[in-house]
């Protein structure tokens, strides 16, 4: 665990994707089975630890440390898990045996008595020699997983304390973050699988294809990845197939594309779903619904799963339909993030799949076939299985030219989407000759969303970036004017500008700094002096966390307005109007614009 914790620690600081892959692959190379398999499970989110409440962690540290010192430390560090990991009393130095694992304190020049095993002060200092000896050995991750899988609620405090006794500072931090669900190291399941691929000759997509049906500690996967074993086979009749994702289309890309090579569909504002149905070894059909990340969400949608009658794998959008009309995402949300569902809820919020692709039909894998051929198979499959109106076809949107498609995207209601137009968030473009590829290949599929919103705001603070940008001020906090004539921050953006623009902004920040707060610089922002930036964003929500009362979704710097004096930047009331204004919020009738993230995945 200490080695895995050291990896997590490095990953938490490493901003580069390639750097992360190298770190993980290096760990896999130097860590034996099954330890590395449990690590892979933790990185891909396949492990679910029984959650420990912060209250329990406070209780454990309270029993072991002076309350004044804990309060001062927590106040200084600002993070409970980290404070506890650092403060957790270590075994007395004198009683530690020599060990291959480096201990927190090495040799010392000071030849004085070390803290005695039983000091006058009661709490927190003593620990038996047995525990100290145990601490010198590393604790396997599998032992931690085993402990958390098999213990009862009452055993939690003692089990957790015993584990913490055996780990070093980083190990304790990682364990506490894992079990409180607060581990944020910027590693996706895809990235971890890419690191597995880096062990040998296989492509990351090949790992994705065998992944479904595998379980920790993945020994057969590592054997195959390292060229030592056969390709793992899944025994699940209806496994998840990795989904194909699209790239956002920029206006500048459009002219380079040939409209005749593409087909267009509406981009529905629901959640991506994969429905897989096939006969098992006993001849009975198994039906599963997966989120786009492969999470099995069938349990939350039994009404839908039971209605499906085809044999194959269909890709589509999960929506709520009432009287044939697609409901808003807010309505759909009532059914998300549930493990089970009541009959009342199913009646009130009937789930539906609007299908746009087929990956497997009657046992035949169609993923290598071009989109057009798959489309024909999909149409045939749906017309052969009416499915009580639970499954229908997402229509194609005909367009002779990009201008025509732009018109359809701007006004879906008048271009075939009819009453469902409010659930359309743009159009999807798919090359007619494209195979169904896992991941996010660039070129075959594009999403072309409806125009984002934008405001002119004033740059207020800038912070240095990471990696290649570590000497550049590349993270920007910007604000708009209040009625009182003050600037109030409304968001933070760290992309959208070109490299040349980054250099210009960096120069501006360095020359116009009025205040420094650690790595953050405050730049001049008066009515006459400052930099106006055009900020594009996808949505706005009310937020009590921010002084402006607003939170922006997906903000980015669209343009630098060197020409514009700060006084002419937008006002807070303009943004507030956008929240209230239906014309800006056609897809979100309530106060919320933009999609909420959910574990079930987003589009």
């Amino acid at each position, binding site marked *: 665990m200490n080695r895995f914790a050291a990896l997590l620690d490095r990953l*938490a*600081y490493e901003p580069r994707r390639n*750097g992360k892959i190298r*770190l993980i692959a*290096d760990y896999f190379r130097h860590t034996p089975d099954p330890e590395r398999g449990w690590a892979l499970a933790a990185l891909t989110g396949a492990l679910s630890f029984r959650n420990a409440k912060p209250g329990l962690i406070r209780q454990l540290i309270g029993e072991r440390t*002076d309350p*004044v*010192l804990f309060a*001062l*430390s927590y106040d200084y*560090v*600002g*993070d409970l898990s980290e404070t506890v990991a*650092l*403060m957790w009393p270590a075994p007395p*130095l004198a009683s530690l045996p020599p060990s291959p694992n*480096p*201990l*927190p*304190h*090495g*040799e*010392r*020049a*000071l030849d*004085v*008595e*070390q*803290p005695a095993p039983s000091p*006058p*002060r009661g709490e927190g200092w003593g620990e038996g020699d047995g525990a100290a000896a145990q601490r010198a050995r590393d604790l396997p991750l599998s032992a931690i997983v085993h402990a958390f899988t098999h213990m009862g609620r009452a055993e939690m405090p003692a089990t957790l304390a015993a584990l913490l006794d055996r780990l070093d*500072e980083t190990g304790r931090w990682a364990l506490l973050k894992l079990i409180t669900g607060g581990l944020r190291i910027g590693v996706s399941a895809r990235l971890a699988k890419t690191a597995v691929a880096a062990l040998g000759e296989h492509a990351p997509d090949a790992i994705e294809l065998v992944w479904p049906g595998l379980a920790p500690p993945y020994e057969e996967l590592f054997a195959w990845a390292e060229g030592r074993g056969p390709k793992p086979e899944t025994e699940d009749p209806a496994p998840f197939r990795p989904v194909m994702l699209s790239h956002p289309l920029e206006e500048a890309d459009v002219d380079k594309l040939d409209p005749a090579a593409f087909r267009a569909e509406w981009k529905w504002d629901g959640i991506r779903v994969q429905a897989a149905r096939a006969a098992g070894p006993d001849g009975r059909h198994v039906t599963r619904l997966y989120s786009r990340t492969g999470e099995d969400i069938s349990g939350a949608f039994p009404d839908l799963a039971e209605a499906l009658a085809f044999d194959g794998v269909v890709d589509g959008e999960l929506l709520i339909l009432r009287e044939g009309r697609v409901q808003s995402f807010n309505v759909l949300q009532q059914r998300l993030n549930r493990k089970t569902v009541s009959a009342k809820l199913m009646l009130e919020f009937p789930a539906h799949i609007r299908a746009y692709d087929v990956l497997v039909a009657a046992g035949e894998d169609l993923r290598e076939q071009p989109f057009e051929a798959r489309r024909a198979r999909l149409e045939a499959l749906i017309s052969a299985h009416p499915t009580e109106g639970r499954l229908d076809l997402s229509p194609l949107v005909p367009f002779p030219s990009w201008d025509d498609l732009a018109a359809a995207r701007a006004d879906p209601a008048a271009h075939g989407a009819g009453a469902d137009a409010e659930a359309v968030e743009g159009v999807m473009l798919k090359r007619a000759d494209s195979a169904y590829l896992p991941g996010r290949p660039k070129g075959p599929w594009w999403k072309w969303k409806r125009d984002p919103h934008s405001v002119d705001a004033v740059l*207020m603070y800038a912070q240095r970036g990471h*990696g*290649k940008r*570590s*000497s550049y001020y590349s993270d920007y*906090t910007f604000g708009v004017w209040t009625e009182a004539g003050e600037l109030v*921050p*409304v*968001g*933070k*953006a760290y992309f959208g500008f070109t490299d040349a623009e980054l250099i210009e902004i960096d120069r501006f920040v360095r020359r116009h700094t009025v205040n420094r*707060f*650690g*790595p*953050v610089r*405050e730049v001049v922002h008066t009515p006459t002096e400052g930099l106006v930036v055009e900020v594009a964003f996808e949505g706005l929500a009310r*937020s009590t966390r*921010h*002084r402006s009362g607003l*939170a*922006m*979704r*997906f*903000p980015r710097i669209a343009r630098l307005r060197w020409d514009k004096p700060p006084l002419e930047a937008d006002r807070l009331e303009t943004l507030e109007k956008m929240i209230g204004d239906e014309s800006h919020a056609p897809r979100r009738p309530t106060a919320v614009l933009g*999609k909420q*993230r959910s574990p079930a995945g*987003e*589009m």
Partner: protein
Amino acid sequence: MRPEELLHTTPQGLYSPAGDFFIDPTRPVARALITHGHSDHARAGHGSVLATQQTLDIMAIRYGEAFAGTVQAADYGARIEVNGGGVTFHPAGHILGSAQIALEWRGCTIVASGDYKPGADPTALPFAPVPCHVFISEATFGLPVFRHPAPAIEIAKLMESLALFPERAHLVGAYALGKAQRVMALLRAAGHDRPILLHGAMEKLTDYYRTQGIDLGETRPARDASPAERAGAVVLCPPGALADVWSRRFPDPVTAFASGWMRIRARARQNGVELPLILSDHADWDELQVAIRATGCEELWVTHGQEDALVHWATQEGLRARPLHMVGYGEEEGEAAAPDAPAPDAPAAPEVAP
């Protein structure tokens, strides 16, 4: 005599009425005793300065030969008579030439320890506890969250990263006096034998360490290094240079920072550090306690840092303890890892991009 008659605080720093001198004064005074060469303790412009020869040498390198009216070198362990009392310098283990200063007047002994560390350091004489009535301690890392790992563990992190990213320069932010040379010595001890590239601000002091018999291996000015020499090299620079335009000459570097502050994740992240190295020249929480106990003192005065926690601990230990609330110390080394950098009133990115 009461300890306060021997030493008390003034706006200029610690002052001894009995001996009529200051210790590490923050403004120019007539007579100054200097514990070590860091600029928050050793300032130019005093009338006369008493310090170890190495501290005097370092001050001359940094401020020029005329940094004080007159200077006198103090040997470790040699008692110097001043106005009827005794002043003795003892090793503090902080950096080259660093000293604790023991004052003895009419049976009362006070030790002003300056900055100190009991841990091993190949570039400084080891800390020696001095029996005293009053011990004056800093508390830079005076919280139980600060337990410095063994230096070898931290250097191993750097060595592992060099092996994993052999094409990238590793920029290590380290304070130019003391920390930089200690990092070099630790790297050599770990078997790193490539030339180490230095920021211009470190060259003179590093050369001085060599004249004192400390082997730091081959170093070269970073500005003269070819792109091939920069790839996979360790480059030492002052912490401020990590984010400076200076660092742009290294394409895609790994940014490391050697400091005790790196123990706290938020501090490391605030500084844009990708490879935090927890390496400190100050005593950690356990070492503060061990050092204070080893002096056998009855009373503890705490100069700067996390005074509250250390005073709380000492009181529970049965010592008389009080903070001196001294300002002006801990600034030079803390510069890039400003311990109390307030975040501006700026909203965090409300949501992750899809």
